[in-house]
């Protein structure tokens, strides 16, 4: 495996060096969850299903979509999601 630059850890080394995902919320009830449609065909069908499940669990759901799956989400869209949502679901699939 090819690797990048090696640096020395400046911290107290009390957490693992590998970055870990943020902890999952205990519940989505009362949270605003953003669903980002990356604009692949029939992604909306899948997200409709996810939206139903989230609503049943007590979440408020907001839908967003990228203009095209070929490029990263525009900065304005990322900032809008960050402002409006507590959580976001985004995935890449074919």
């Amino acid at each position: 495996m090819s690797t990048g630059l090696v640096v020395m850890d400046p911290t107290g080394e009390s957490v693992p060096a590998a970055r870990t995902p943020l902890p999952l919320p205990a519940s989505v009830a009362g949270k605003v969850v953003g669903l980002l449609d990356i604009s692949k065909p029939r992604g909306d069908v899948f997200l409709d299903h996810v939206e139903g499940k989230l609503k049943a669990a007590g979440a408020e759901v907001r839908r967003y979509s990228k203009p095209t799956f070929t490029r990263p989400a525009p900065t304005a869209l990322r900032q809008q999601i960050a402002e409006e949502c507590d959580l976001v679901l985004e995935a890449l699939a074919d």
Partner: protein
Amino acid sequence: MSQRYVVVVKADCPTCQLITPVLEALAPRETVALWSQDDPAFPAVPGVQHDVTLKASFDLGVEIVPALIAFSDEEEVARCEGWERAAWQSILEDSALGAELPALRPGCASLSVTPPHSERLRAERLAARRVTLGQEEDIQEALFDRGWSDGLPVVPPTPERVARMLEGTTRDPAEVLGDVPPNLVPVTVEKVAINAVLAGCKPEYLPVVIAAVEAALLPPFCMHGLLATTYFSGPMVVVCGPLAKAIGMNSQGNALGQGNRANATIGRALQLVIRNVGGGRPQGVDRATLGNPGKYTFCFAEDGDPQWSNLNEDAGLPRNANSVTLFAADGVQGIVDQKARTPEPLCRSFAEALKVVSHPKMVQAADAFLVVSPEHARVFHDAGWSKETVTKTLRDYLTRPGQELIRGAGGMEEGLPPALAERRFEKFREGGLRLVRAGGEAGMFSAVIGGWGASGTIGSSPVTHEIRL
């Protein structure tokens, strides 16, 4: 008693080449180990070991080749670096050795002390965890993402850079300086060096950074409380002594401002140690309501004004010592007085400005530093006023009746209990007002730097700590 000898050479050294006959004579001896740093085919004799990693040379501490080291019962008993015929003959107990060669030829630098090998070899001895960044990661973004930055770009702390940084001190990288709050994590000289690299320090600044960390961990400074407080303050570092000039610190024009690498990075390195080693982060244990921009870095040098005592002398150190003074500081408040030409009116101006530290009606709370500029200092010098005289006058001018300070006085609820109305109060506690000289030649401007509202035994006292090189 077992005798053995190690000889280290490199092909790219004319002296090593010159002594080829000696090496050929030694090669058959069982007690002699021959190491070649760069070319296993040199010298062209059997049994030459190639020190391809240079670890053997490094571990032996070889600085010059050719090197001859003698061991008796595994204790080093003699060493000669370079070719000194008499020494080699004596160590190897062979009076005919190299008789045809010149008496003396200096050697060449060992590859193990030559960059980049020297840094790699020194870095291998360091203890801190190595973190491998992803090949596709942008290095700067990766360091931001890991939370190692104060918000500004940092220098990637590669093992080689950390090894170079540690050249700035004679202290053992493994030496523990104390426990850094808030998580009370033991901090080594090596961890300080890593954060000094992040901050952008040169190796020659490292002793100052180490002293600043040591000072911050002294109990009277109360670094834990200073970090955790909702108050504005953070550690300010004032460097006093010839070292400040030697490493290029600024004590003159814009001393409290931007643009000087040593001032900027030494103060920043201290804050990064608190952040990274101690785990003290804004909106984490750092509960500051507003903070202040000095929490990125706040460090300057004291001017060597010969007419006033300096911070060394104020702390009982010799005038020419090197020290850091740490103060739990807020921001800078300017004082303009362009009219005073005698000490008393200037002290009146200073006193009015000092009165408002924390709140005009608060007394015996925060400490303060008064940074006196050259043009203001001149007014005192012309009148023959020492620092002590100025300080005493300011304390007199800052002593006020309780009626002005009690709750409700001046229409302000903030204030002392009404029962204290008949007493008089000094603004600052004993030792709570400190004077320091700095600034550019032009401008009748001085500065008040107010401190944390919790001073002295209930909070932080300024500390002066000597710098060890």
